[in-house]
């Protein structure tokens, strides 16, 4: 996983301090794979990566792996594969070429140097990107955009059959279920809760406990429960309409509401 985290602007990224090789061992986990180690080692040579001594680099890397072993650090497989490959490259570079199959040691060394150059280029590019102009950080967009107001004309689909069927079914259902009689005086209706929430919402800009929106003069427990239920329903309705946001930290925890900034409604 990625251990070396950037600061937000990514400045940290480039400060690849040319560490003496023993220091590398302290934090093997901080490296992004064997190429990363090679790149850091290569920068020690302080020349253009294309002119680097790959032989020297290979020796440094092998020493690095050896030391890791000596310190009984766990070395991931890909680091070892790289060590094996570099050992092979080293032998190809040192021994006279006897056969002509495959690329020569020099060719392989050039390719490795090029690969390092590529990685370095990408690393620098990443840094330049983060240090460049970032919209939202260095150049800002309009803070209060005026959204295009969409007037929706809803066209409702409904056939006469739908209408009549609904009526008939409703009548039938009602025949079974006793009409619900609401105790009008004590019930705090959803409409009333909606009105109240809408009026009060603008005055409380931050997250506020939903229960703060209940009417104050509720004496009996029934009215209070009715008001709680209606206010919750009203808040759900308004959240659905995008007028407010709801949150609840934990099960049975307090429900909080906040007016929604419908700034960039599209």
């Amino acid at each position, binding site marked *: 996983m990625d251990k070396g985290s950037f600061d937000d602007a990514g400045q940290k990224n480039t400060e690849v301090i040319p560490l003496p090789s023993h220091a590398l061992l302290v934090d093997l986990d901080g490296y992004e794979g064997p190429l990363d180690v090679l790149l850091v080692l290569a920068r020690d040579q302080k020349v253009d990566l294309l002119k680097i001594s790959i032989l020297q680099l290979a020796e440094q890397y092998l020493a690095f792996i050896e030391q890791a072993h000596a310190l009984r650090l766990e070395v991931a497989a890909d680091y070892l594969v790289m060590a094996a490959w570099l050992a092979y490259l080293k032998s190809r570079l040192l021994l006279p070429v006897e056969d002509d199959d495959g690329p020569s040691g020099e060719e392989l060394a050039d390719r490795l140097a090029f690969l390092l150059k590529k990685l370095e280029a990408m690393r620098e590019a990443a840094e330049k990107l983060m240090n460049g102009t970032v919209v939202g950080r260095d150049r800002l*967009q309009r803070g209060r955009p005026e959204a295009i107001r969409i007037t929706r004309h*809803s066209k409702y689909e409904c056939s006469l059959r739908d209408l009549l069927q609904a*009526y008939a079914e409703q*009548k039938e259902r009602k025949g079974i279920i006793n009409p619900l009689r609401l105790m009008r005086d004590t019930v705090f209706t959803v409409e009333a809760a909606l009105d109240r929430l809408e009026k009060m919402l603008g005055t409380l800009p931050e997250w506020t406990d939903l229960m703060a929106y209940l009417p104050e003069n509720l004496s009996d427990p029934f009215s209070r429960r009715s008001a709680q239920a209606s206010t919750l329903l009203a808040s759900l*309705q308004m959240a659905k309409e995008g007028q407010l946001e709801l949150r609840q930290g934990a099960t049975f925890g307090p429900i909080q509401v906040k007016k929604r900034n419908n700034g960039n409604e599209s």
Partner: protein
Amino acid sequence: MSLDPEHVRMAEALLFASKEPLDEAALAERLPEGADIPAILATIEEHYRHKGVNLTRLAGKWTFLTAPDLSWLLEEERETTRRLSRAALETLAIIAYHQPVTRAEIEEIRGVGLSRGTMDVLFDAGWIRPRGRRRTPGRPVTYGVTEDFLIHFGLDDIKDLPGFDEMKAAGLLNTEPTGIFRDLARANEEEDSLEDPEEEEL
């Protein structure tokens, strides 16, 4: 005193990027010391006066807003096709068959309270309208259907709404008769003379 054009630029950027309108104190705090805020604002205000956006003062704070004569540019009309909810459908049917009918009567018939959205949807669709007030205590508003309703459902007159037997004969309904439609048809005929004597216009 001459204005530093850099101050004007800064104020412009701040007013543009700020999420809220800014008052003079907020600007003064962000601009270099000694910046003549009122003069800066006056300059910007004048500069943008004839542009597509204007610097506008709202509740003592300043913000850029689209020029009022161009606000139509930011309006878009869209048509969406929607289905009516079951509650809306039932409510519409009740209004059609029982009109003029009050909200309380609709609730009574349906046996549940009417949520505000239900009536809104029907108004939005252009299918119902307030018709007058019932001459009873509280003088509640009565509702009826509109001409658009008749047009949409292909009816010449509200009396053309089919009764139960006709619907059943036409295979429109598979519910068993409960008698209500017969009563209803009769009730409609008796009460629903178009200009209801009980009504007064809104």
